[in-house]
């Protein structure tokens, strides 16, 4: 076997980490063998053209199927670290929802943004720790964009502490714009993966997906929502923000307090 061929096979084997562990244990060797045979016949380029879509679509199907059949009789309590992360996330979500209930002064608003930013990142971390026991590859692919883009947005928010509104304009305006888009999409994608892996309540995951996508519509530079003359898009975007905060509360509660199914054994 040449080193290029070996590299292709290793890469393909790495891609197979998207499947549930029990599926990989049973079929990964056979799939690599089939991929190698196919590559030998049609060439590496053509073999790779369809491989990612083939693996991703069928891996998602396997996860959905597994979620329907997994037994929930064995449960374990959350660890102290998970409890702490979940509680911080719960606080972050609550801080976002608080703005819908009480009028928060501008100075306190920065603290609220700080708590919210930290809350989102801690919940993602807590859920990821749980999801990686079920499917390490898919869990990582789900968490990385949310953590990276969420951190980016969090840093941008720290930069504007003490500024007069509008805080997202000026020098950093476009950087804020892209940080906002990326973080909303990162959280939406994390919600999709969380929904599929079903290690926490799907209500929270669905709220995160819908809330994040609707939240995008409120970004000033898209020109849909307006701070001077509110439109229907303001309402839609605010609904998204509310759902986003609600998602962190639900997911924070779940990871902090709910017992979960025991992780699969080595043979599973």
């Amino acid at each position, binding site marked *: 076997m040449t080193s290029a061929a070996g590299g292709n096979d290793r890469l393909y084997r790495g891609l197979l980490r998207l499947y549930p562990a029990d599926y990989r244990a049973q*079929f990964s060797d056979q799939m690599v*063998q089939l991929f190698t*045979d196919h590559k030998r016949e049609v060439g590496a380029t053509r073999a790779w053209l369809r491989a990612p879509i*083939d693996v991703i679509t069928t891996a998602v199907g396997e996860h959905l199927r597994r979620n329907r059949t997994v037994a929930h009789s064995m449960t374990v309590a959350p660890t102290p670290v998970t409890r702490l992360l979940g509680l911080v996330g719960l606080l972050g979500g609550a801080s976002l929802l608080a703005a819908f209930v009480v009028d928060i002064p501008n100075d306190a608003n920065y603290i609220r943004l700080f708590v919210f930013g930290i809350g989102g990142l801690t919940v993602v971390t807590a859920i990821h720790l749980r999801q990686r026991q079920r499917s390490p590859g898919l869990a990582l692919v789900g968490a990385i964009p949310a953590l990276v883009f969420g951190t980016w947005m969090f840093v941008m928010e720290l930069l504007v502490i003490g500024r007069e509104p509008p805080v997202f304009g000026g020098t950093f305006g476009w950087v804020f714009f892209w940080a906002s888009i990326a973080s909303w999409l990162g959280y939406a994608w994390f919600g999709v993966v969380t929904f599929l892996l079903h290690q926490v309540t799907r209500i929270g995951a669905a709220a995160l997906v819908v809330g994040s996508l609707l939240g995008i519509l409120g970004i000033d530079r898209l020109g849909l929502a307006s701070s001077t003359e509110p439109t229907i898009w303001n309402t839609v975007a605010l609904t998204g923000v509310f759902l986003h905060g609600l998602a962190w509360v639900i997911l924070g509660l779940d990871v902090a307090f709910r017992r979960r199914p025991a992780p699969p054994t080595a043979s599973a």
Partner: protein
Amino acid sequence: MSTAHSAAAPPPQVSRTAILIMLAIGPEERHGYAIMQEVARITDGATRLGPGGVYTTIRRLLEDGLIEESDERPDPEMDDQRRRYYRLTGLGRTVVAAEARRLQSLVAAAKPWALEAR
């Protein structure tokens, strides 16, 4: 052999891909790559399965007791011994036969205009 379904149980619902894979296995024993090639051949290239499509379907067919893994391994001089070969079970043959009869009656009922229409 899988005992997922007793003789009294109704045959499981199977997808089009599952039927194609069972047809590709046929009366013989085939490994994954041979199945993939045979599916492409019997559909004139219209259906080209990837490794994921082949093995996720094989897994369901194994669980439903429609196919089983052969215990025999190929001669190491003739083929790679790591390959796994699959064959139809009795239930699998019954399901394929029922599907073939269903399609046969459908073709028989087809009117000339339906076959000639473009």
